[in-house]
């Protein structure tokens, strides 16, 4: 205890000295600077990041010039043909989400010109897709690629999740089924176009499609359908996907046309088959029991 008092006394001896204030100030500055330099990103790191982004954009531009510029123009400005048709739409301001959707689902690059680009196997690697998205995003501000937390239901109670599904169902039936059908099986659009089947579509692409409105689909921007509402639609689609087929085989969930085909092919087919069978097998009225004597 005595020893402790003595050392404390020594330490505090000069605290009222003339240089004490200066020393404290220096110490404070030193600590602030030290902490800043320890925690703040270094000039070098920031520069590195900027260089990486530039490199990504540059890499994306290289890919763009090879694979996309023919229709979309060298700077994504879009190309109109001489007869006023659009060869490729303007890409300024469509954002990274549009590129991620179009390239990720294989719709772009087109294999052939047509009414609509069908989804197919992705032509680029994931890194190349990222580079293309970065390049197109650099052309003008647009929606960024959404992340899983945008549509995840994590953190909600069971009750809230159930409510989200119910709400999502109503949004889906109001906004989506007119083209995509009540079960998301897809439907016909004019001139050979079609609203694709969305039952197997990955959550990220559903979200991006809503966000960017590819092709003839209207865009459901955040002001139109908020992030929570988009999340609910995805939750509804997932719940439908997970629920069993209560009524038996769904036959593609395409509505009454398929049911009519089943009626005629399976129903009438089988019953007429039975009618033929019944008419072909008639009772033998002269069959005798064993041991019966005919007089």
């Amino acid at each position, binding site marked *: 205890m005595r020893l402790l008092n003595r050392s404390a006394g020594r330490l505090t001896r000069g605290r009222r000295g003339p240089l004490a204030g200066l020393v404290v100030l220096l110490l404070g500055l030193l600590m602030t600077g030290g902490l800043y330099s320890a925690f703040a990103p270094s000039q070098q790191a920031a520069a590195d990041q900027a260089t990486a982004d530039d490199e990504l954009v540059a890499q994306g531009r290289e890919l763009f010039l090879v694979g996309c510029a023919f229709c979309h123009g060298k700077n994504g400005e879009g190309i109109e043909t001489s007869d006023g048709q659009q060869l490729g739409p303007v890409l300024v301001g469509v954002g990274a989400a549009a590129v991620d959707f179009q390239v990720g689902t294989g719709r772009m690059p087109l294999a052939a010109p047509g009414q609509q680009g069908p989804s197919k196997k992705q032509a680029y690697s994931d890194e190349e897709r990222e580079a293309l998205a970065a390049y197109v995003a650099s052309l003008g501000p647009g929606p960024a690629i959404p992340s899983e937390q945008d549509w995840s239901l994590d953190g909600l109670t069971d009750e809230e999740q159930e409510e989200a599904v119910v709400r999502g169902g109503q949004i889906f039936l109001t906004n989506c*089924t007119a083209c995509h059908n*009540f079960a998301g099986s897809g439907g016909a659009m004019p001139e050979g176009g079609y609203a694709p089947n969305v039952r197997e579509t990955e959550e990220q692409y559903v979200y991006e499609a809503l966000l960017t409105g590819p092709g003839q689909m209207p865009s459901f921007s955040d002001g139109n359908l908020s992030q929570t509402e988009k999340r609910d639609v995805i939750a509804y689609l997932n719940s439908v996907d997970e629920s069993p087929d*209560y009524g038996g085989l769904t036959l593609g969930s395409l509505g009454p046309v398929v049911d009519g085909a089943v009626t*005629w092919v399976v*129903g009438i087919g089988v*019953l007429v088959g039975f009618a033929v069978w019944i008419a072909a097998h008639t009772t033998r009225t002269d069959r005798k029991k064993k041991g019966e004597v*005919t007089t």
Partner: protein
Amino acid sequence: MSTTETNGAGQSSVASQVASTNGAKASSAKKGSPVGKAANWADERLGLAGAAKKNLRKVFPDHWSFMLGEIALWSFVVLLITGVFLTLWYRPSMAEVTYTGAYEPMRGLHVSEAFASTVDLSFDVRGGLLMRQMHHWAAMLFIAAMLVHMMRVYFTGAYRKPRELNWVIGVLLLVMGTLEGFTGYSLPDDMLSGTGIRAADGFVKSIPVIGTYASFFLFDGEFPGSAVISRLYTVHVLLLPGLILGLIAAHMLLLVYHKHTQWPGPGRTEQNVVGYPMLPVYAAKAGGFFFIVFGVTALLGGLFTLNPIWAYGPYDPSKVTAGSQPDWYMGWPDGALRIFPGPPLEYSFFGVTLSLNVFIPIILLPTIAILILLALPFVEAWITKDKREHHLLERPRDAPGRTATMVALMTFYGLMWMAGGNDIIAITFDLSINQITYFLRVAVIVGPILAFIITRRWCISLQRKDKEDLLHGYETGIIMRSAQGGFSERHEPLPVGKAYAIAQRDPDRPVELERATDENGVPSPTTRSARLRHRLSAYLHGGGVDTPTRAELEKAHAHAAHEHELEGSGDDRALTARGENTPH
């Protein structure tokens, strides 16, 4: 039929108190069996033995195509059974309730009571979904079977005198069945059925002058109102089933009264019916067929989803789904509506809209179709001037004009039907819905005409082939080589039954034109209609092949017999003779 005499007595009679004798011993009263006793008890009180004796022995001819109407009858029985089950839980009310049932993605929604009770029926009532789906599948089969049955009756000429009125009853049943199906489709009040009612509202409103009044009467105000579901329910479970039951009873009574038609064959004439008796053969066949129809319906109901109302969700005028179609039997008017040209046929004057683009395909066209069906037997009787009774059927090929007429109508129906599913066809086969529409607009007019011409020619060709087979035998596929090295195919005479079917028919003869003026030069008053009849008859009933005469047949048979004899002889000279005589 060579049953013993002792057996015979016990077998043939319903009453058990019958003396049995084998002819050698004196007869003795047999002790009655319990069944016989019960029958006797009932007969003493109800006096039904006379009618039963007659009807239980009623003979029906055997052919698979005579059982098609039974499919419709038995599906109707399935509809009655499953329908009664559904009424125990279904509530025909449009009152708003909060859904609190077992189907989670809809819990808490405000829905109509009709919809909520149908979802409850599907998820909370044991076996309810199976019953719902069976009811719906049975309805689809009911109308399909009626249509197939009608085709059989038409193509075989079974609607001719004296059965014209039964044909009319059949057409009315088809119309009632369709309306019954439509009202049932509307009851669950899900998105699809609501869309259907919405469309029906538009159809009613398209009727000139009375349209809007009729719509307001139907919905008790502007669509959707709060009355239509309960009204449709009354029509669906009371009015239409009552009418259908009555018409079915009349249909069956007339069937018994007229006796069943039969195919031509050995021993079959216009005056008799050859077949098996009601009891035990037909009772077993028809009764067994009921269980088959029930079983197939149950399998369909258990295996295939039909109208998943939980996926459609409750009806709300702001919602609609791609692939909104009516059930198949309303598909062809829907198709007509889909391909019918729009803008040039919608007029507006003095603030009144006249939607002929809706009225013609969906109201006028089906009405005309029903009238054509009703008129078919009478028109044919008028053209042919045939006043005889017909109990022997005709094969479709033996009446080329008749067959071609129905094939043309079927082609029209089928193409319209296709148009009703144009969007599903477009996405399934990667086609453009616009191109399908343009194609069908032409095809519904050209198709039936082509179908008529092709079918008529086809039938006449088949008649030629029949006559050829009858006169020269059928090709056996056995190649004979003569001693000279020539090859010929051996022909065998047709089996007797088949030969009868071909030879025993009326040749299809066009009606001769009456003289336009009588011997005094006075013009006949019926000339114009007679000329029309003559022209129609010449085209519909002309060009066919006459059945061979007795002399022709006998000559051909003698020739065939001679040929066989020669083939057997192995005589060189005879074979040469055969080679000369071979008609091909």
